[in-house]
């Protein structure tokens, strides 16, 4: 039985589409330092350095996104579980960092279109709106959300699974107002 059938319904209005991207899996990389064996292993495995503060970077062929979450944490977002499983295996032996699979615990909402920032400004503060290449952790719809962007006119919202229905309900109401305006 689907967790929440309504979550699979796309929401859209003129200039904006919002959808839960069920194909994306999320893990977190935790480490003590931005450099070192663990960071080097991440670089070798992904082709990407651990992102700098507030940075979001996309890997080769758009297979993977790394997004800064805190000074000791980077989120990894990837399509399908296989890539993350391989990464987990390659990072398992290090003492200065660890890989924690959060798939299913964190959900990804894809916000596309030129009105994306209009929507985000109605969910949180202006600091919640990432520019391309940024990841911003803030309060959206009264819950903690990481908003990141790696390309123009698209934002990914990384939301705790348990809060997803709340965030989507807030978005749905806002889109109804957009449509009515």
């Amino acid at each position, binding site marked *: 039985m689907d967790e929440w059938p309504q979550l699979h319904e796309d929401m859209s209005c003129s200039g904006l589409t919002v959808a839960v991207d069920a194909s994306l899996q999320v893990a977190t990389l*935790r480490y003590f330092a931005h450099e070192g064996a663990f960071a080097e292993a991440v670089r070798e495995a992904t082709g990407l350095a651990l992102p700098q503060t507030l940075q979001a970077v996309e890997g080769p062929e758009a297979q993977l996104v790394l997004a800064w979450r805190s000074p000791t944490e980077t989120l990894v977002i990837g399509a399908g579980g296989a890539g993350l499983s391989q990464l987990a295996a390659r990072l398992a032996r290090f*003492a200065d960092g660890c890989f924690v699979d959060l798939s299913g615990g964190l959900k990804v909402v894809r916000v596309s279109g030129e009105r994306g920032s209009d929507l985000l400004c109605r969910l949180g503060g202006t600091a919640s709106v990432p520019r391309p290449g940024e990841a911003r952790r803030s309060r959206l719809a009264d819950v903690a959300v990481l908003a990141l962007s790696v390309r123009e006119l698209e934002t990914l919202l990384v939301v705790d699974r348990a809060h997803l229905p709340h965030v989507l309900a807030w978005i749905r109401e806002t889109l109804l107002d957009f449509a009515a305006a």
Partner: protein
Amino acid sequence: MRGFKGDTLASALLANGVRLVGRSFKLHRPRGLWSCGLEEPSALVDVGRGARRTPNVRATLLEIEEGLAATSVNCWPSVGLDLGALTGAFGALLPAGFYYKTFKWPSWRWYEPTIRRMAGMGRAPTEPDADHYEEVAAEADVLVVGGGIAGLAAAVAAARAGAHVRLLTRAARFGGTLAWRGDAEVAGLVAAARQLGVELLPRTLAFGVYDHNLVCACESTSAEGSADLPGCVLRERLWKIRARTVIAAAGAFERPLVFPDNDRPGVMLAGAALKYALAYGVACGRRIVVAANSDSAYQVAEALRAAGLEIVAVVDRRPDPSAAAVPGGLRVIRSAALTTVRGGRAVRGCRVASVADGRLTSASSEALDCDLILNAGGFVPAVHLHSQAGGKLRWLAREAMFVPDGAAPALVSVGACAGVFMREAARDHAAAVGEALALGRPAPAAPPAGAGAAEAITRVAGVAGKQFIDLQNDVAAQDVELAARENYRSVEHLKRYTTTGMGTDQGKTSNVNALLQLAEYTGQSPEEVGTTRFRPPFAPITLGAIVGRRAGSLYRPLKDLPAHAWHAAQGASFEIFGDWRRPAAYPLQGESLEAAAQREAGIVRQRAGLFDGSPLGKLEVFGPDAARFLDLMYVGTMSTLAPGQARYGLLLNEHGTLVDDGIVARLGEQHYWVNTTTAGVDRTAAAFEEWLQCEFVNLKVLVTPVTSRWANVTVAGPRAWQWLAAVGLEGALAPGRMKHMTLRESELEGVPLRVLRASFSGELGYEVNLPAEHAGDLLGRLWERAVEIGAVLYGIEALQVMRIEKGYLHIGTDTDGTTLPDDVGFARGIERKTAQFVGRRSLSRPVARDPQRLQLVGLKSVDGRTPLPVGAHIAAHPPPAEIDGRVTSSCFSPELGYPIALALLRRGSQRSGERVRVYHLGAMTEAEVVKTPFVDREGRRVHG
């Protein structure tokens, strides 16, 4: 009533000859329209019907719409016949603070219900709001508040200098006081602003300046009170604007004069009458007396005379008004004041006498016939935003007004709110400020000018009749005098004692007169008295605007279980526990929640039960110092755990107080799995981080919350393993091979599992942790085999019953902010632990060793029937009496067949077998103190 598009309710009422529109708060005196803007103290109406009713809307701001429904407030049965006006007969007995003095005997509580019924003005709707509201965040380099000529000039100059500019104005049209005059310069500035990309927001009231230049404003997005609105509309929008710098161009209010019966319908502000005449084509009266204390009185008089109205006289307090200001052909009575106003519900005339220094200089007075008395007492710059931003004020004695004393941090005032009343000077200064701020340069100082001379004190001494200062709250000059005699010297105290400056208008037209009176009576200067602190909101806003979308299901973020839909399909009755919607029980048809919980608990103890424990807090603790860190954080010793072993732990704060508990399991050499309570996971994670970042900075530990990643499917009861084996869990997890308080990593058809042998029910228990997306599948598979096991689904209520039967502690329910480990029976764990841990030192304080402490015990009612309610007091005597403890958890035990409870009881550990009295809502139940657990005292069941 008929009106024109663009009319406000106020202008339409005046045009239709309605003069009496409201009643005052305390004395219910008849009141008319006083102003033409948001400073209106009297003309308040409830707008709309049913769920769409909005109370206390100012008629002066309310644009009329077809079908508008509005009623006067604070009157019954009608504004014309208001029985509340009987209080006016006792007006002399109701001076400032009368209730503090007279309602003390026999007790304030005798009077309070009646006073509370009488208090308040409009009536809030009782139905849920039919409409909705949103909030939006925005930024600006320069934010201009105010759409008058100064605000527009500042915005245009800032935009020309390259800044991103937003401009807000409460009005529907730009131009401020010039908006209705078809001013060409205003039109040019608006056009230029649009061309330069200035974001113009009309109908948007900036009501507060907060830290770090956050300006909040409320935009009206739909008509108020219209009957023709569709089912649900976006009514208002709350703007939260972060601005690099703010320009306040909020204008000024007119200051009224203080004279006897100056509150009668037909007495109003001069500028308001002028606006009604020129903007709306409405004559507020035909024969006009202008009470003057400012040169602006003559401009108004001349304009109204040009509009065809009769100016009976201008009665000027001052001996020498500016000669240039006085137009020819007007009758001017200098050094004079109004001493009487004739008419109750409408002005019919007045008397005028000579005054000097606020006192009558002759016994004779002159009667003037008039139907309108206008007040032109000077100006009050709107310094509210400046003050909210932390700016200081200075007093201009000649103009008798407060103006900003320089700029506030990151906020600069321009135009009339900075004391600049000359059009050209205001425009030029504002433009210079706009450009300077856009370019990051210091803003030039404001050149206050153009307000003209005004006397500070306008009250007339030695005449009869109430001289009102605050019309909304019926505060008269006599009340301020009384307060001063009673030694209220602070303007803040004056406000609270007399209520002047309170209410919906917050003293927009009364504050300065009140503080000037106080200054006079107490021998202070106006600057020494100062103003009350201006706090947001600048003007009333709706609760809906503040709430925004946080209504109904969005009122607060609630969490859903991964398998919420599955539980709903099984008939779960959901309740909220620690921000989670969880099944409280699964009642059968016609079964109560309590009966369901009893049934479920009974079956779990006899056979097996299935429980969704997914909200249980889960943390992964990783790092070379993880073991040492957990030893420091928990009372239990975690470093001695071998991989796969688990241990119960109590988490204390630095005071030694219990803040959480849980089970810590070791996954690997430097990797732990920590279960916290459901509600305690955030505070536990925060405590871990705080100690790591602030105290144990040398420890290399990473803490990662994983609650949402892992669902928890708990199977408990004597047949628990039989049930799990039936769905395919590997034999290595069987009770004979896996001990209680151990954890094994396993898998089921490729799905990773972390299986913990633990129990909060006291029965053989398995907590199967698995990725959240698979929770529904496992629950479903188990449930398919439930019949052959004879098992049941159970909810939180049944779990509570079982854990009380076992005497298991529930943090926050059986503990409070003072409970120490010894109070709940964990002294031995502490004695055995040699290492240091957070809170240990506090456990050696004398208070922690006090033998009189409250300690957790079991209770059972002596009669074997009467429940012992949670919260009930344990005392030797009926309340009010010193209590000996209280009941913390309670249930009827299906296993024992009688009510049981847990309680915190003074010296509880030494009182087993003692009988105590339990008081609750007037009833007393005798109970016996017993040791816990109530069932399975040897603890055999958990081992299977």
